């Protein structure tokens, strides 16, 4: 197991900068996901870690060895980095059996035959493929190929495991199952893992840390819960769903022991409290993010720690698991995802609120 340090990492394709001065510190044993829209440079970053793409600038350190340093012209090729990688297409070699596929990295390392047999058996056991060791690789299903690819990447005890959208070729149900299994496996082995995906719920469910990227830069790097509830910017907030943004005036800021602030805010037909990472100063304005699914429908007169509004139901769309309600508060419209049990009709007068932890002031950048 090893930690990974990325400093000022960049990659140019001609005049196009696919990855732009990335800085990232991955602690040993962590599961880190690179997340972002298509074309944002996730794969390029991962392949630079692997050594399959040469970085044009910056330095990569894995464990205590520098594997690439553009300023010194140092570049360790992929076979010298001792990293395991799982490809989107699995890249299972069709001219070999399952056993031969998994044994390949070991025979490259000239491990004795008997040891190879033991280690391959153990690796296949981990991914529950022991019974299929002698299958020719082309006869495997997608999920099975996925497992073999993981076994092959783990069998030589690499320092770091890299995965590029490994689940995207599976159907939805298998994707969930394989994802959960893989997370359990990773935690058991404690192997440092860098995982690329553009599926936000997959990223949230699997990772210790999510690195959200856009246009070759990191927007935010934090734990899933924090990324979701306390985004650093409006861009990060909008990447996960379609939140409500409300412009409010700050009346008072109170520091909290956690290091952030509780703001007393007012405007847009209501008043209340929200959380903020910064102190905008008395009289300043902030944009408060409220996710549709974090509203509650209150009984008249009920108080909340956070914010509350009176309004009229403008439209209701029943979706089964939730219903989408648009509430007109006079000054603005709120989009709310409510549970399926409350019966709402257009024109109803309602009282909606959000808990203090659901109201978060974001920077506009």
């Amino acid at each position, binding site marked *: 197991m090893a930690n990974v340090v990325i400093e000022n990492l960049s990659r140019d394709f001609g005049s196009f900068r696919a990855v732009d001065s990335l800085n990232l510190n991955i602690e040993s044993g962590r599961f880190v996901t690179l997340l972002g829209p298509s074309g944002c440079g996730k794969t390029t970053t991962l392949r630079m870690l692997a050594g399959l793409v040469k970085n044009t600038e910056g330095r990569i350190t894995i464990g205590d060895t520098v594997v690439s340093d553009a300023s010194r012209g140092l570049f360790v090729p992929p*076979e010298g980095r001792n990293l395991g990688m799982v490809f989107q297409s699995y890249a299972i070699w069709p001219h070999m059996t399952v056993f031969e596929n998994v044994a390949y990295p070991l025979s490259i390392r000239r491990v004795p035959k008997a040891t190879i047999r033991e280690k391959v058996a153990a690796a296949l056991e981990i991914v529950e493929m022991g019974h299929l060791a002698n299958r020719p690789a082309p006869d495997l299903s997608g999920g099975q190929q996925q497992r073999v690819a993981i076994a092959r990447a783990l069998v030589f005890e690499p320092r770091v495991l890299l995965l590029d959208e490994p689940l995207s070729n599976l159907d939805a149900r298998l994707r969930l199952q394989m994802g959960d299994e893989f997370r359990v496996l990773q935690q058991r082995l404690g192997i440092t893992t860098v995982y690329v995906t553009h599926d936000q719920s997959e990223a949230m469910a699997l990772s210790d840390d999510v690195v959200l990227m856009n246009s070759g830069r990191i927007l935010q790097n934090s734990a899933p819960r924090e990324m979701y509830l306390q985004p650093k910017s409006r861009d990060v907030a909008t990447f996960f769903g379609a939140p409500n943004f409300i412009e409010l005036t700050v009346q008072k800021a109170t520091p909290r022991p956690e290091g952030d602030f509780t703001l007393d805010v007012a405007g847009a037909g209501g008043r209340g409290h929200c959380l903020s990472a910064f102190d905008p100063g008395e009289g300043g304005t902030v944009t408060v993010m409220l996710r549709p699914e974090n509203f509650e429908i209150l009984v008249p007169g009920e108080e909340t720690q956070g914010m509350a509004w009176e309004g009229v139901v403008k439209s209701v769309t029943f979706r089964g698991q939730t219903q989408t309600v648009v509430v007109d508060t006079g000054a603005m419209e709120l989009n709310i995802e409510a549970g399926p049990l409350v019966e709402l009709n257009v024109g109803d007068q309602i009282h909606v609120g959000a808990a203090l932890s659901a109201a978060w002031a974001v920077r506009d950048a």
Partner: protein
Amino acid sequence: MSATTDTSSEMPGGRFAARHRFQTRYIYIGLLIAFLAFITLFPLGMLVYGSFHTGSPSSPESVVSLDGYRAVFSAGNLEILWNTLYIAGVKSVFSLLIAAFLAWIVARTDTPMRGLLEVLITLPFFIPPILTAMAWSLLGNAQTGPINMLWRSLTGSSEPLIDVYSTGGVIWHMMQYAIPFMFLFLVESFRRMDPSLEEASRMCGASRMRTLRGITLRLMIPVMATVFTLSFIRGMESFESPLFFGTPAGVRVVATEIYNAINQDFTPNYQFATAIAIVVMGLMLLLLLAQRAIIGGRNYQTVSGKGYRPGVMALGRWRWATFAFCLLFFFLSVVLPVGQLFIGSFYKYIGFYDTKFLTLEHYRNVFENRAMWDSVLNTMILGLGGATLTMLLGSMVAYISIRTRWHGRRLIDFMAWLPWLMPGIVLGVGFLWAFAYLPGPITIYGTLWALLLAYIAICMPLGVNAMSTAFVQLSVDLEECSRVHGASFLQTMSRILIALAWPSFAIGWLLCFFVVMRELSASVLLYSVGNEVMSVEMLKLWENGRAEEVCVLSMFMILLVVAFRGIQIFVTARRTKLTQ
């Protein structure tokens, strides 16, 4: 009726019309089967008949005998079969090594100008072998060839560097065709390989070289086995190479033995010629079956799902070495022979390259030679007619075997592919008798029709192949839509399919035209005086020692080749643009 009205089967007229169409369709198919049988099964039957009889079908003293086969398997003649296999085998091995290397360079490295190199490497394939054979006869002559003269003057040695009149010469000449042929297949499959298969190997700790050996080349084994078999079969059929370089050196192979048995011997020995033809076809069939058995279904699905750019290896300074290697092949297979023909056409005597012998006399002679122009005209007529008819028939065959469930389609497909296993010279012998003993008042032998039919047979597998791939890709809905709207079978065929598949049709057409233009082995048996084609006319001139005029004619042919190849590349490029 508007275009959207369905042909309603409730109306009596509609049902009658449907049955009527049903019948005309079977008439067309019946005609097609009859024609295919006539150009494939009939000559094959004549070959089998001939191999078991001492004389022709009309000769009264002809009896059944196994003498032909006995002669083939006699000690002296077994050498012929051995030579044929040996030459085909050796040239296939060397060609495969070189072609795989060239394909790898073009598809998988950062060698400069790879697009251009690809065009250059495949060009020799399109130059008629008779031209390069003549050129190499001049170039590689042990005494007078410029290569050996240069060698002697450089080294002071009295020994020649090369002698093309040898087994090695035969093999070398065949390789100039086998390498581009194999290259075409291999480069495509190198390109389509999923690069992550190789990257995974690097991640597992394998070096570049180890990956190339353990993964890339292993994955290519099925393709390589296939092209090897194809090349081996082509080597067994090859006529020009052994005719020019083997026969003078006493190297006997099947194709030239058949030719000599019929054309050069005082009394043609048909029984021996047909028997050895049957034997060699049997060998080819065995080879194909063996390849099927070994490779079987191992057609690895290595094509990547994501349209990913294949990994190109940075070679550093070595890329200029690989570049030079590709150019060297082009130089040896095109520049040298074409240059020799070009220079030869301007000198009074080949071999005496002094400016005072520079002349345009040969050009004048050729332009004033009516026989020569007749042969050019004949080749053009046969090329246009043969290519067009083959592609039309090939489209029908491909359509029937791909788009219908009709039982007879296997027979049609089989007959269309049969000529693929019949070397040109063998087909020539078969047709010779088939036309000579044609019952009824029709005379084909001695007319251009004989050549036309032979060319259609030779090109048929090519035409069917070109159209099959196109039809497989076309959506079924389109044609069903047209048929529902009342178009007849033939109308559907021509309107929708040809209209949509025209780029494939055009490319197939051009390939057929190339084949006709270069064809020598069947033509040399089937032509008659007054009905010469270009290749035959050139061979005749050559045998009369008029090499300089042959050079002039060659220049004309090469211009044609370059023009047609240019059109072909253009059409292919447009097609790939259309499908992307």
